[in-house]
């Protein structure tokens, strides 16, 4: 499996550390309430198909990357810097 780092280009999976679902970027307001925080911390989808998660280019440039990939075919569909994704969402 290869991942396209937006900074370094196409690199092998072993250079990356897997963090989890990209929902971690959208941290709720501190006063959002217990249910919202519970969902943020503990509830995850487990899709068969397209998913988006956070990877860290640990053995490379040190960037956090949002990777869109397909859990069924293992195809990597796209990548972008997590900082860009957060700016686009806010």
């Amino acid at each position, binding site marked *: 499996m290869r991942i396209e780092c937006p*900074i*370094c*280009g196409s*690199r*092998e999976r*072993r*250079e990356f550390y897997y963090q989890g679902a990209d929902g971690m970027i959208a941290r709720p307001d501190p006063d959002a309430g217990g249910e919202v925080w519970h969902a943020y911390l503990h509830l995850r989808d487990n899709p068969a198909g397209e998913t988006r998660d956070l990877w860290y280019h*640990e*053995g*490379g*440039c*040190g*960037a956090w990357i949002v990777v869109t990939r397909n859990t069924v075919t293992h195809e990597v569909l796209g990548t972008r810097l997590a900082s860009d994704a957060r700016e686009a969402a806010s």
Partner: protein
Amino acid sequence: MVELKAQTPCAGLLPMTIGSVTVVEADLGVLTSLSPVGDGKDFAAALKAAHGLGAPKPGRATGRDGQRCLWFARSEVLLAGPVPDKTLEAHAAVVDQSDGWACVTLSGAGAVDVLARLVPVDFRESIFKRGHTARTLVQHMSASITRTGADTFLILVFRSMAGTLVHELKVAMEAVASRG
């Protein structure tokens, strides 16, 4: 008063030649991590004015032996050689890392073949040219690798990994040499 004697990271380990490949310790001078603030334009101008070096884009290195600037990570470059000019401090976080890195030069006809056994990056000259640099892994070690010549590479790993780096290179160099 105890007289302490400074030792280089690879003291007693290098130089080493196996087959057509040689690895020697590189003395790069002062190593300084520079993390530009803002969009980096002021930093690039300050670096040019102070040291005559261009600020490298991702995956590139500027300068020459004795005075280099390596792209080193996201929003970070490494100045290798000169003592950093004070004017840089207004445009970047300036951190001395001189004693933090083990620096070696790998050279010879089979250098690319040696790296191919250790690093998950394509170092063939058609892809990775002189002046190209990469942050990547040597086996499990985080490393910075730069092509400085046709068959010459500069490799940096954390100083604590010096012995492991030399061992990994030795195993790979022996394997390449054994294939003739």
